[in-house]
């Protein structure tokens, strides 16, 4: 079930009404209801993978208890290894088996062998990377004594499978979400209204910005050999906005939906395209994944404690692993490596003063220097996105080399099939202005028009709904991050 589908439009209000009216405000009933509806939500993709989700949940619940109960460190470690090993084993099998099999075959072919490697037709269970990481953070936190295990199976299951975050995050931490699952929730008017506003903005990002950009970005990437250099640059920019609108739009809908049920999920995006360098970009993009890798990989590896070279090594490790987490393709690994490379100046020459988290804070416009920094960061990010989007490394390299060889200054809108992509430009510009004006908020329209008269404010939200109705792409396109 997609957030941008008619079924979700029926599902959400139904669950909302049942949750607040049919559960008699009983925590136990509310949790049961959310658990059942979350499993139903997941089963709409493929009910067979419910067993995998249930197994992964049961495994982490059980091993969490065992780690906590174990008297010796060795025993604790054994249970941790079982949990991590089985979780990563499933992830590895479903997501990476074919990749490793094919890469192995390619590698031994270099030495003249012709191996017969069996690849399997494996369906990737939606959201497996997300719920596996939920579970891993839970058992690792218990192992390090940061939290106590949950003793309520329903509450723990809901923490793993809560439907707004089940398929594409944010990757929650037990320390943040479990307490919310455990304590009674009462309806909060402001929280619910805020949730609806965030859902509205999420839909604008997804169905207006991302889907419109996707139509042309796909066309340009799929036929990159036929277009001029400037058109390929335009294609990369469109993809940059597609992936931002798609993923952050999904997150806004997820966060807004959770708010309707009294939950606050982790913030996952903080205006990443308003970053002054790549280090800042990664503090603003997919925050829950970046912080997961920081806490469970970078810091255990030594972080920045053991000198410059180890810091550089650790930085590369987390970016390469993060790239690989995104998908079983060398393009993602190179994308991760490029980002590690781009972040190096910030690693080597650490800034003396921490810059403000908000660019041009208290001012309407950025300074010339800030504008330059924003532009350079956007260019570097967009360049790396080419690898992320390309079908293969060869495709990415051909795409980049063609940018510089094929009429770099030729107008992209002269192609018949791309003439209407000018609409994307007309949508992106006001979108960026609103995002810029709202960059201090959790989401762009959180406080926009806060002091306006109610009628004017409501008219603005209605206009947002109209923009969705007028510019949404039809056909219920899937979210990019579902594949991860």
């Amino acid at each position, binding site marked *: 079930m997609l957030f941008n589908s*008619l079924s979700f439009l029926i599902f959400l209000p139904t669950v909302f009404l049942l949750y*607040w009216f049919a559960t008699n405000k009983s925590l136990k009933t509310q949790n049961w209801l959310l658990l059942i509806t979350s499993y139903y939500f997941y089963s709409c993709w493929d009910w067979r993978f419910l067993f995998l989700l249930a197994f992964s949940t049961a495994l982490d619940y059980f091993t969490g208890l065992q780690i906590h109960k174990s008297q010796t460190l060795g025993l604790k470690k054994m249970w941790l290894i079982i949990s991590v090993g089985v979780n990563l084993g499933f992830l590895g099998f479903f997501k990476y088996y074919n990749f490793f099999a094919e890469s192995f075959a390619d590698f031994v072919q270099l030495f003249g062998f012709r191996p017969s490697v069996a690849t399997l037709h494996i369906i990737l269970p939606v959201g497996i990377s997300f719920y596996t990481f939920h579970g891993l953070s839970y058992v690792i936190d218990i192992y390090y004594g940061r939290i106590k295990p949950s003793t309520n199976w329903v509450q723990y299951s809901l923490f793993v499978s809560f439907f707004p975050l089940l398929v594409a995050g944010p990757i929650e931490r037990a320390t943040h979400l479990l307490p919310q699952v455990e304590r009674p929730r009462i*309806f909060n*008017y402001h929280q*619910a*209204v805020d949730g*609806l506003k965030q859902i509205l903005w999420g839909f604008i990002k997804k169905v207006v910005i991302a889907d419109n950009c996707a139509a042309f970005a796909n066309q340009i990437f799929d036929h990159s050999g036929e277009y001029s250099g400037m058109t390929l640059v335009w294609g990369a920019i469109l993809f940059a906005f597609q992936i931002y609108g798609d993923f952050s739009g999904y997150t806004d809908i997820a966060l807004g939906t959770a708010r309707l049920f009294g939950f606050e999920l982790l913030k996952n995006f903080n205006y990443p395209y308003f970053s002054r360098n790549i280090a800042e970009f990664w503090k603003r993009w997919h925050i829950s994944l970046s912080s997961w890798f920081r806490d469970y990989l970078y810091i255990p590896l030594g972080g920045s404690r053991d000198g410059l070279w180890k810091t550089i090594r650790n930085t590369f490790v987390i970016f390469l692993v993060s790239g690989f987490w995104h998908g079983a393709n060398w393009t993602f690994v190179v994308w991760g490596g490029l980002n590690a490379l781009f972040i190096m100046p910030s690693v080597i020459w650490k800034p003396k003063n921490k810059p403000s988290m908000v660019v041009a804070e208290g001012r309407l416009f950025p300074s010339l220097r800030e504008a330059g920094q924003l532009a350079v960061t956007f260019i570097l990010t967009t360049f790396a996105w080419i690898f992320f989007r390309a079908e293969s490394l060869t495709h990415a390299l051909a795409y980049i080399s063609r940018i510089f060889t094929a009429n770099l200054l030729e107008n992209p809108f002269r192609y018949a099939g791309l003439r*209407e992509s*000018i*609409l994307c430009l*007309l949508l992106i510009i006001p979108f960026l202005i609103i995002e810029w004006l709202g960059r201090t908020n959790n989401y762009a329209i959180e406080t926009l028009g806060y002091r306006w008269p109610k*009628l004017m404010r*409501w*008219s603005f*939200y*209605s*206009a947002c*709904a*109209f923009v969705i*109705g*007028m*510019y*949404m792409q*039809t056909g219920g396109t899937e979210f990019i991050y579902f594949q991860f």
Partner: protein
Amino acid sequence: MKKFAVNLTAFGLLGGCIYVVLLLVFGFTAPHMLRPNLPYDDDRVAGFSNLRFREADSIKNVDVLFLGSSHTYRGYDPRIFKRYGLKTFNLGSSAQTLRQTQYLLDIYLEQMNPKVVILDIYPKFLNLDGVESSIDLLSNTHLGKPALDMVFDVQDIRVLNTFLYNAFVDPFDNEHSGEKITWSYKEDTYIKGGYTQTNKTYASKFTDQKVDEYIFDEEQYEALLDIKDELDKRKIRTICIQSPILPARYARANNKACIDSTLRSHFSLYYNYNEVNRLSEECFSDDQHLNQKGVGIFNNFVASVLQEQIPDLYAEAKDD
């Protein structure tokens, strides 16, 4: 919670009004590119839907009613059937699928009271979503409950926007004054009785390598059964026909036998003209539509089927 429910309802009402107002503003002022989900076009003359449905409003008691896609309004000439003494009307419309055929029957069946319905089926449209056709019909017919049913049925924002726009514009539309009627467009001419005549001859060589998949969509299949039920209930005889397309194109279609067998199982009078006679390229205006020469040959075949299979129709027509 009460405040939430009240405010949400109030916002829904205000939002609905603002949505419609903005829709009207965009519909009247914005160029097509800036209103992708309101593709309604009041200048659209291609296919002559505006003229056809305006004429249809005054047509009563026909002998034969034709329904189907552009193959229909370009493929059945009422003048030819008139020579056989039959009063006919052509209710074909662009990309019409069976779901839209149902809609047209809801509106016109009672009024036109046909003795025979010829249902022209182009199998390539049996798995279309029906959006294009719905927009065309909503833009050119009077809106009522059947139109609303179709909006819910098709479930597409473009169809909903077109419906809302027309629901507010229609009552003030002065097109019916007759000032803007266009009877010719490019090589096409509108002929009274719902037909679009073209004398253009297919000139290029058919090189399309794409295979046309003939697949019966589940909802279209249900619509077919409903149409059949409705016509049977009213004791209206039905003939199902596949009108001819360019033989080279027909040769590239898949699953033809299955579609033939399905349609034959539901209609005792079913004819796939592509299998009956292989027309030459000079009978076509493009790779899918007949020109006047082709229509002449094809319509004489249809008239002979009517004579042979429903002879009483001619007797009744003579009596009338």
